[in-house]
């Protein structure tokens, strides 16, 4: 190498970056290889997309970034992009001689982190390392969010939950952090989990994933949560957080696949009443399905509430992110839009903004519904065993209006929803009704322009209310469950609420958060509604929630969930989980 870099990866960061170039044109392959070598990157060239995927799968952690042409004979570049994003979660750069805006847009929608026009200049290639670096930073931030989220959750012990916490703002965040520190003693164990894991990216190998899936199956989807999975998997170096995010991604993936199937099956224009603004390309069909299923879901919920699995989760993990996950899970979709708007997951506004996109939220709704109605079909999972949870996540993101997602945002979204649902039931653990009401009023006051939203809201609260009532008994278990159940229903509500919420203004967001949190947290979770923890909360919830929901639905719908790891099972479950 003329540039004098002796050993890759040991010198200054960009040097030794492992790049995989995929292009059907041999001339370009040669040129790019040369150019990248000049940048002192480690280059692997590949003329076929399938070959490239094979290479990537063989060495999961063997590449840092992928550069791919858009037009390839054996596989569409966008498809490859999706696969890579989902399975390996690597940054992908698209290139083409065609620079039409629509093409570039498509690239972005599918998750490309950049789109280069051919002929490509050296200087453009020199800077591709930024995408790798950026991704790493975001991952770290995710972890940090988880950490602070936990802290916040712990710190909010109901008593701290107060009206003046409504204003979720920057200061709150700092106060949260302070409280977090203060509360450290409460949950050092959890903290230890997160604080020590400074983003070390876990590569989900096929084996690891198999273990994961097996564990999930063993536990039962309705009870699944990162902690349980982690324990079952018995992988010493794996942290709960790793499992949590993987679980979330997995769910997302399943949901996405489900969506695709749904679309293909063309659910048809069932009603989209509750999802007015949902116009995600992928989600459209889903929406219909969701709506139809909403009733089912509601019914399921009842059963669900009886089943206690939420409760189990809740009870089992007081401060466990699982519970939170439950609620949050639906949000992954919504998260997406959030992230698109606001790169910083910590920013609640982020979620607010994304709400506008609502499609994301709808997505969760949809997913939920999908689960109900379409569980038995499609088992995409079986097709791609190596699909990692990341895929789900990524897919999800791509599905949603093409907003590139950032997981962190989703949680926020979630949290807000929770708050909305919960209204502000700080004092009584099982007070969902007030929450609903609250939400409603909030909505009305804040979301003036969105009449539809309000309508949606009113409709939903009712269901929630009714739902709550079913939970009236105040056993801890129930109360724990309740939030769950509520969440389920809330999710749909939240979706619409969110949509509504988001559109009006960002400013309305904080108040909602407060409300939502109440509901969600019934016990220790009340803290959540500050919105600050949203991010982290969402993450937890996502995992837990998703798992829970589908299980719930799953139980209702099918009875043979206990089968051993079967790829087909997952799609079902996930779909249900995904709902939000």
């Amino acid at each position, binding site marked *: 190498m003329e540039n004098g870099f002796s050993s890759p990866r040991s010198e200054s960061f960009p040097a030794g970056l492992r790049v995989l170039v995929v292009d059907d044109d041999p*001339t*370009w392959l*040669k*040129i790019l290889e040369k150019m990248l070598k000049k940048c002192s990157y480690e280059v692997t060239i590949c003329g076929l997309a399938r070959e490239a995927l094979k290479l990537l799968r063989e060495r999961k952690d063997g590449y840092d970034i992928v550069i791919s042409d858009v037009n390839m004979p054996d596989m569409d570049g966008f498809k490859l992009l999706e696969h890579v994003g989902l399975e390996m979660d690597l940054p992908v750069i698209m290139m083409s001689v065609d620079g039409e805006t629509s093409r570039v847009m498509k690239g972005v929608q599918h998750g490309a982190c950049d789109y280069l026009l051919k*002929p490509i200049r050296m200087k453009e290639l020199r800077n591709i390392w930024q995408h790798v670096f950026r991704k790493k930073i975001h991952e770290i931030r995710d972890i940090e969010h988880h950490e602070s989220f936990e802290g916040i959750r712990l710190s909010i012990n109901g008593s701290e939950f107060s009206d003046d916490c409504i204003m979720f703002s920057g200061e709150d965040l700092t106060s949260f952090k302070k409280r977090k520190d203060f509360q450290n003693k409460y949950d050092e164990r959890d903290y230890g989990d997160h604080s020590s894991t400074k983003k070390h990216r876990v590569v989900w190998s096929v084996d690891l994933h198999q273990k994961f899936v097996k564990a999930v199956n063993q536990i039962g989807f309705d009870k699944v949560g990162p902690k349980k999975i982690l324990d079952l998997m018995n992988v010493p170096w794996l942290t709960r957080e790793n499992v949590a995010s993987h679980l979330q991604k997995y769910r997302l993936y399943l949901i996405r696949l489900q969506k695709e199937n749904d679309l293909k099956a063309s659910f048809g224009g069932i009603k989209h009443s509750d999802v007015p603004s949902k116009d995600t390309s992928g989600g459209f069909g889903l929406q219909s399905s969701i709506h139809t299923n909403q009733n089912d879901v509601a019914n399921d919920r009842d059963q669900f509430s009886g089943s206690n699995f939420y409760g189990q989760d809740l009870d089992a993990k007081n401060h466990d992110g699982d519970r939170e996950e439950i609620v949050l899970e639906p949000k992954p979709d919504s998260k997406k839009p959030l992230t698109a708007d606001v790169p910083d997951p910590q920013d609640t506004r982020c979620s607010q903004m994304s709400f506008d996109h609502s499609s994301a939220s709808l997505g969760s709704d949809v997913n939920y519904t999908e689960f109900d109605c379409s569980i038995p079909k499609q088992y995409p999972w079986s097709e791609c065993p190596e699909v990692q949870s990341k895929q789900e996540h990524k897919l999800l993101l791509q599905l949603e209006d093409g907003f590139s997602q950032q997981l962190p945002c989703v949680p926020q979204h979630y949290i807000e929803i929770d708050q909305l649902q919960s209204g502000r039931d700080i004092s009584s653990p099982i007070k969902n009704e007030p929450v609903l009401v609250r939400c409603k009023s909030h909505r009305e006051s804040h979301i003036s322009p969105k009449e539809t939203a309000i309508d949606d809201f009113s409709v939903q609260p009712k269901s929630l209310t009714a739902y709550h009532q079913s939970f009236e008994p105040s056993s801890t278990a129930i109360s724990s469950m309740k939030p769950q159940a509520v969440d389920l229903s809330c999710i749909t509500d939240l979706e619409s609420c969110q949509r509504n919420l988001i559109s009006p203004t960002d400013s309305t967001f904080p108040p909602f958060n407060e409300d939502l949190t109440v509901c969600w947290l019934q016990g220790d979770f009340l803290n959540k509604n500050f919105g600050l923890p949203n991010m982290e909360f969402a993450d937890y919830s996502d995992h837990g929630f998703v798992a829970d929901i589908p299980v719930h639905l799953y139980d209702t719908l099918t009875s043979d969930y206990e089968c051993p790891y079967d790829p087909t099972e997952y799609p079902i479950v996930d779909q249900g989980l995904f709902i939000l």
Partner: protein
Amino acid sequence: MELGQMQGRLAEFTKSLYMEGILDAQFLQLQQLQDESNPDFVVEVVSLFFEDSEKLLNDIARALDQQSVDFKRVDAHVHQLKGSSASVGAQRVKNACVAFRNCCEEQNVEGCLRCLQQVKQEHYLVKNKLETLFRLEQQIVAAGGSVPMAEMTF
């Protein structure tokens, strides 16, 4: 011819190629990529290009020769050729491809055949010119001299 003269001729020749739009800045990039570790880089890339493009041209001709022309297929080939020619800086070939794609959109067989002719012509032209260029370079190197790095002064 002495070395200095040869080098002068090469410089002039190269410049004319750029001026006439037969080559564009991409070719210069290729030349700049060449180094001691890869002294024949440009020649190799160009050879690859001609190999690939000839195949493409044949495919296009064949596709246009069908009873019922599959314009999508033709367009795909032309798009590929466009990308390829962009890789070596064969500007006129690339432009001809752009025009060709328009004909494909119109689904006009005669128009396409005409475009194909145009592309072939430009292709042939750039091929000849590059062969001359390489020959000149070889002569210089054989005479003990070095090929000056081209500069885009225009």
